[in-house]
């Protein structure tokens, strides 16, 4: 049976009324999980597991997968409207999405997030259908040394997000790296910077940092504005839908974001978050107006939102083809496979084509459902912006704190998030960029662990970092990423000198 026939066969499974219902239910639950900061898809699926045991395995897995990619849709809504990323993969969306909302383009931002996610999801599924088995074989060529080089490349890419001042950007990055070192070190087993607090032993959860810096910091800024008498409510400017101009600018980012998302997803451990970072940085680099990123550029929403959805298809590759989970969520999904007595791996494509293709095809259907579900809701969601600040701000704060509490059922995390909130507010005042902190927290842990694993394997010889073609390529790419801004800045300075223009400072 050819792959094409198999895909068609899969639709006979995924289009049964029962499975359509479970796809819908999964997408709906996923959207909810995505909207709530703290409760992520991994925990959501974990909670669902014991309930689904009596279900047909295919239906159960269809529902769980729906929850996974549904969460990626849901996360963007709160990022855009209230600057609260509901999901790690939605952090980058907040940077320009929220600014778009402030510029009165919330409807367009939500619409492009939904459309981008749909297109990316579809591209990702096609790639998953055609490339799953061969790609999984490439993924295992990435050892600790290659992962370190990949992280270095991502860090180098992030360096372009430093904002107006290199020094402030460096400070933010260092702070993020420092936060990433808190907890029991995975290699030595020694506790670092835990101050004898047991809650710090397992490190500071990434979401605590994000919710604190972004959302709670935003609430504090909002309170300040209110106290100053600024009670202006954001107004939607122009039509709710995308303008022709916005649509034209989004197509490229959506397509590039889909590619990045899918291939990063294939690599175990690299995951959705890094793909959104790379997509954002790429769009910024390609843009004619990189300085406008962070002020509400639709490219900065379209790219990352597409990347995070495509990556959910990418991570299915090692899961289905090898039985290797590439993320926390797929680790729980693997648990579900084992629970049903199904062994993922190359054989699964032969032994249970109904399950594999039923699942894959349900993702086509689910993506369409999410688009239909989300687009009409854009009009409803943007009304959140019309809520007076005296009601909206306490609501946002409450959602944030509940979300943070649910990560570990710990009040300690709530205090920590509030602390990061105050820090986020202060950094806004001092014009210290927040994104590098968050990204360093995400990348720092993996980068350090990969580095040390690699050196353990080589008995301390740094030659391991140039021992493979993949590693060397990534190192060169990182170097280019690092040098590029210097060259660009140099060129710009020379131009400025020749022009002798002055006075135009960067507006906030």
């Amino acid at each position, binding site marked *: 049976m050819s792959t094409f026939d198999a895909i068609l066969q899969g639709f006979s499974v995924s289009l049964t009324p029962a499975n359509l219902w479970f796809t819908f239910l999964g997408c709906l639950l996923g959207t909810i999980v995505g909207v709530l900061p703290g409760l992520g898809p*991994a*925990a959501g*699926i*974990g*909670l669902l*597991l*014991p309930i689904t045991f009596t279900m047909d395995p295919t239906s159960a897995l269809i529902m769980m997968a729906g929850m996974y990619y549904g969460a990626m849709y849901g996360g963007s809504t709160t990022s855009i409207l209230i600057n609260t990323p509901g999901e790690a993969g939605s952090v980058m969306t907040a940077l320009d999405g929220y600014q778009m909302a402030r510029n009165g383009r919330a409807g367009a931002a939500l619409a492009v997030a939904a459309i981008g996610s749909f297109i990316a999801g579809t591209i990702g599924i096609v790639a998953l259908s055609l490339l799953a088995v061969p790609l999984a074989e490439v*993924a*295992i*060529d*990435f*050892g*600790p*040394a290659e992962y370190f080089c990949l992280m270095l490349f991502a860090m180098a890419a992030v360096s372009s997000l430093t904002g107006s001042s290199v020094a402030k950007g460096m400070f933010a990055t260092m702070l993020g790296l420092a936060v990433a070192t808190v907890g*029991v*070190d*995975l*290699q*030595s*087993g*020694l*506790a670092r910077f835990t101050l004898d607090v*047991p*809650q710090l*032993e*397992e490190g500071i959860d990434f979401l605590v940092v994000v919710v604190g810096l972004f959302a709670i910091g935003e609430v504090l800024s909002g309170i300040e504005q209110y106290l100053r008498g600024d009670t202006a409510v954001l107004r939607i400017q122009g039509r709710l839908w995308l303008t022709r101009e916005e649509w034209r600018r989004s197509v490229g980012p959506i397509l590039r974001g889909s590619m990045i998302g899918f291939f990063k997803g294939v690599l*175990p*451990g690299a995951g959705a978050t890094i793909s959104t970072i790379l997509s954002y940085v790429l769009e910024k680099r390609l843009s004619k107006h990189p300085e406008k990123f962070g002020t509400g550029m639709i490219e900065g929403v379209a790219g990352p939102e597409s990347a995070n959805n495509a990556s959910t298809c990418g991570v299915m590759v*090692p899961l289905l083809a*090898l*039985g*290797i*989970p*590439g993320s*926390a969520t*797929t*680790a*729980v999904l*693997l*648990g579900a*496979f*084992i*629970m049903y*007595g199904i*062994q*993922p*791996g*190359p*054989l*699964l494509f032969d032994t249970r084509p109904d399950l594999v293709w039923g699942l894959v095809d349900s993702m086509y259907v689910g993506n369409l459902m999410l688009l239909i579900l989300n687009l009409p809701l854009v009009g409803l969601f943007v009304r959140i912006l019309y809520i007076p600040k005296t009601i909206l701000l306490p609501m946002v704060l409450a959602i944030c704190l509940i979300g943070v509490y649910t990560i*570990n*059922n*710990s009040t*300690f995390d709530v205090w920590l998030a509030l602390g990061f909130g105050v820090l986020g507010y202060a950094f806004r005042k001092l014009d210290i960029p927040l994104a590098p902190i968050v990204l360093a927290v995400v990348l720092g842990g993996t980068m350090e*662990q990969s580095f040390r*694993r690699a050196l*353990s*394997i080589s*008995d301390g010889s740094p030659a391991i970092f140039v021992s493979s073609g993949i590693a060397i390529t990534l190192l060169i790419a990182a170097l280019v990423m690092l040098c590029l801004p210097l060259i660009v800045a140099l060129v710009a300075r020379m131009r400025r000198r020749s022009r002798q223009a002055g006075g135009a400072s960067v507006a906030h």
Partner: protein
Amino acid sequence: MTSRSTSSKRRAGGIRARMFAAFAALALGAAVQAQTVPLDKPLTLVAHTAAGSATDLAVRELGKALQPIIKQPVLVVNRPGGSGAVQMTSLRDGPTDGYTLGLNTSSHLMVFHTAAKGKLKRDDFAWLAGLQTDPFVLYVRKDSPIKSLQDLVALAKQKAQAGEKLNVGGALPQGSAHSIAFSIFAREAGIPFNWIAFSGNGEIAPAVLGGHVDVGQTNPGPLIPLAKSGRVRVLAVMNATRISSYPDVPTYAEAGFPVDTTWAQLRGIFGNRNIPKDMQDKLTRAILLAAQSDSWKAYMERSSLLPLNQDQQAYTALLAKQEKIGVQWMHEIGLLKE
């Protein structure tokens, strides 16, 4: 006595087979009580890991199996942090009526000497029942020249002569239950090694398949997909006997390395030591009954876990023995000093 009246009430309207069972049970008196251990209010089980983990799954499966026995709902609460320190603190400082219990692993014992040193100790708790053993297995990729544990040791010795060490991919840091297990084997075989710590088999497996480490160590359950699809060769299982999910895989002793197999990842149920003694007994009985239920046994089989089913006395003794071995290794690895 309440147990007898409720169970006979339920059976009164049953079909003939049920009647017969009731009579038979009446005749056996004690056996009737063994069917259920009714409790007065809902029971809370506290997991020390996040929802979706192997330990969380064990708690939820136990909860499912316990409900019909205690005739009360079971609530599962996740309290991660400090490798169990957060969960244990909440249990020690919580109510002592026996309606809040936790699931423990072997790693809990090490926390008394590391994260919670001087704050928590084994005697703060009643170790009610041992439920399961999760042994360790060693594996290589299918096309590796290493076919047996003997081959692995030969490679390690050959590397040692060249001034290199065997690279072992395993879960969690030096001093974890996983790393101690390999240390026990390496001592027996007389080989040096590098412990390359990963967060779990999801990270270990790609490193083994890609040839980035020489050998991987994990638990049998997570390895099933790769073993069944023939992508990896399982060299040996660290257990006293072979295990049913890997019938062709020899034990370490069969492969020529008779190590002490007391060291395995254990899971059981514990609570505050001030729970009244008769309540403790009741709980132990209920938990061991749940471990005999069909749903629990099916879960154990699926996940390649071995039944432990020890009562309070046996489980407490086993944990004491484990703690001693663990502390000794923590000293040798250099994580404990005194």
